């Protein structure tokens, strides 16, 4: 029914409509993010990250009917590309623009598209269980690749990203090697190291100049010879010290000894204000230092904008809030793209191939092309989510992208509703909320740790089985079925 209505509408209308919906949601989320406790902001960031990845799962599993456990591995691709590009390519300007997080995100997305295209090409030839098995191998195998290249990818410990500042790029540290990257040369992040380097440069230069002058001034007759050495004859006997010369107690007066009265008391010191140590003074001093030391030294490079960093700290920059707003931005952009794809022609193509590949082929749809395109779109979303996760964790490590992550995505999509984008959002909420709920419950009741830690997964597993058996449409599918029943309509829970 819906589809017929959609066909009649001019597609431009639909795109504007979707943009309005996503824009309003984005605005509401930003307001929410700025008015809640930073702790909840970090949950919000996780929900947005999961939702980003699961929009891709909706398309791949729900619409295209391909069960994939590889999306956790594709998130790893995105996360590692993000980390590597922000670490190593930070000094490379593209089309005259300074490198920043957006470039790294773009490259992470490209990486996802590339890998997704390769796997999708393989996957499109395979039936359900074979594909699930192959992607299972991917979920287990890809994290192992990081151990294969420990210098580049940091091995088991992964790569550490430094805290992302909104004004500059990203300084990245390779935690495995413990060495700082060479990203400071353009001064994007660490003002101190840049200033120090400058000072060394000046010092070195002046020393070299002085040395050169001295060499030139020295004449041969200025050199010291053996004759210049002092001998015993140069000293008289009387010059030697005897025991009499030792100082005795009598040489000191009694009064010279220090008494308790001589101890300095508080009164001898001024209070803190006298010395001018208060917040305001320190702040201005620091700013003055930054202005003088950094602004002038690096003033030749217009792209360096350190005032943004200090401004951010002055206005109470909260990292959780920034991470959440970044994750929300990505999730909203991805949601906009997903909405247009799912509710447009491509969504109907994916469903057609899922429901009957032969019939789809008869009407001129390429089944394998449709499957590959679903894989590529979901890989792109997964890679972007991986880049967001890397920024939330400020770390990329194989442990964060293991089989557990892939299984979580599958659980979320099934519980929320396999073939609806709203289901992906509900699934993301559930993935973040359920462990917290169990934690809260167990805190009240004093359950042992091994119960608390495993209870969410036990619930997930049982719920997945229950949902597949009793309500294949998940949360959204079931609610929609109720609504349709009230209206006297019927449709498949997976449509």
């Amino acid at each position: 029914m819906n589809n017929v209505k959609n066909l009649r509408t001019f597609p431009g209308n639909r795109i504007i409509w979707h943009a309005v919906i996503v824009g309003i949601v984005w605005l509401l989320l930003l307001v929410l993010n700025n008015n809640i406790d930073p702790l909840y902001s970090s949950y919000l960031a996780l929900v947005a990250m999961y939702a980003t990845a699961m929009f891709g799962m909706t398309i791949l599993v729900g619409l295209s009917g391909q069960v994939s456990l590889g999306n956790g591995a594709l998130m790893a691709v995105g996360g590692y590309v993000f980390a590597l590009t922000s670490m190593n390519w930070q000094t490379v300007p593209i089309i005259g623009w300074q490198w920043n997080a957006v470039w790294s995100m773009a490259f992470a997305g490209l990486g996802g598209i590339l890998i997704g295209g390769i796997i999708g090409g393989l996957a499109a030839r395979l039936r359900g269980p074979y594909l699930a098995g192959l992607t299972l191998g991917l979920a287990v195998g890809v994290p192992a690749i990081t151990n294969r290249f420990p210098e580049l990818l940091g091995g088991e410990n992964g790569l550490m990203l430094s805290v992302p500042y909104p004004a500059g790029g990203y300084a990245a540290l390779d935690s495995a090697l413990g060495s700082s990257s060479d990203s400071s040369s353009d001064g994007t992040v660490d003002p101190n190291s840049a200033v120090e380097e400058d000072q060394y440069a000046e010092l070195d230069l002046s020393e070299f100049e002085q040395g050169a002058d001295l060499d030139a001034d020295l004449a041969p007759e200025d050199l010291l010879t053996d004759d210049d050495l002092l001998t015993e004859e140069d000293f008289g006997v009387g010059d030697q010290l005897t025991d009499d010369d030792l100082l005795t107690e009598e040489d000191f007066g009694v009064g010279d000894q220090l008494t308790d009265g001589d101890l300095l008391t508080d009164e001898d010191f001024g209070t803190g204000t006298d010395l001018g140590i208060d917040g305001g003074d320190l702040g201005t001093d620091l700013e003055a230092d930054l202005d003088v030391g950094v602004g002038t030294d690096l003033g030749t490079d217009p792209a360096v904008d350190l005032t943004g960093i200090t401004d951010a700290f002055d206005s109470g920059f909260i990292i959780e809030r920034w991470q959440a707003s970044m994750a929300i931005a990505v999730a909203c952009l991805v949601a906009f793209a997903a909405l247009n794809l799912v509710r447009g022609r491509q969504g109907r193509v994916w469903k057609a191939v899922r429901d009957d590949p032969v019939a789809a082929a008869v009407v001129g749809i390429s089944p394998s092309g449709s499957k590959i395109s679903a894989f590529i779109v979901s890989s792109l979303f997964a890679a972007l989510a991986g880049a967001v996760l890397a920024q939330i964790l400020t770390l990329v490590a194989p442990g964060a992208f293991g089989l557990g992550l892939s299984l979580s995505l599958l659980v979320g999509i099934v519980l929320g509703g396999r073939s609806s984008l709203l289901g992906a959002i509900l699934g993301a909420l559930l993935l973040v909320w359920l462990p917290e709920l169990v934690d809260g419950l167990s805190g009240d009741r004093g359950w042992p740790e091994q119960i608390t830690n495993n209870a969410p997964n036990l619930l997930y597993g049982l719920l997945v089985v229950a949902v597949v058996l009793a309500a294949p449409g998940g949360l959204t599918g079931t609610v929609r079925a109720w609504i349709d029943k009230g209206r006297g309509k019927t449709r498949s829970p997976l449509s």
Partner: protein
Amino acid sequence: MTNFIDYLLGGFSNGAVIALMALALVLVWRSTRMVNFAQVGQAMFTTYVALTIQQSTGNWVLALLVAIGAGAILGVIVFFLVIRPVKNSDSTGAIIATFGVLIALQAGAGMIWGGDPRGFIPPVDNAGLEFAGRIWPISPYDILVLSATAALVIGLTLLFTKTSLGLSMRASAFNPEVARLSGVRVNRMLISGWAIAGATGAIGGVLIAPASTISPNSFDILLVFAFTAAVIGGLDSLIGAVTFGIGTGLVISLVSGYSDSGNAPIVALVLLALNLLLKPDGVFGHHGARSV
């Protein structure tokens, strides 16, 4: 060359266990035409049961027998509660449901036995045998594993070829409708298939446990290896599963020996991808893996 022979010999006992897990996957495939991704989860669970029995009684044979029984029962439970209700309605759902079982079993084992890796003491010595003046990478325990696997494979082959139960199972796997018309109780055959698969997986779990440690997630990698072996063997063929199970074990042993054991999953992935690309029906199989 001595290294090569050592690595090769060292791979046999691992390969035998991979073969057992692959056999379990094939048995389920033959009975219900689906891959049970919870198979290693079931095996992990029954191995924990065996570990508990062994620690309280000290009797390895009793532990193995209990694990076999528990594996068969668990297989039947999973079949009745999860597989039978879902089977025909939704093929995507059936795959997802087996992953749900896997997640629940792993979490359940973590709840009962904790997440820390546990050791499983082998019933016989697990140190390499000394023979002809050098130590070989084959221990008395490896010989036990290999002979147990051989006995099981021979037993299953006899079951399927020489008994009426085996004949009925083959008939209902080959064509359920015709089998039902010929008086075969197809439903019982499906249950038998899941029970035998569960027991086979349980034996594999108990046999592999002493080689390393056991934890709720420690068998994940075994699932990848077993799936690889089963698919290369054709998913339908017992002999294929055994052959390529042992083959996978040997390849992994060589890769681990010459480079690093961390590369084994990558090699399994490459083997699987190449096989699905070049010969998706497997070497011994005759059912289409490709859909288009």
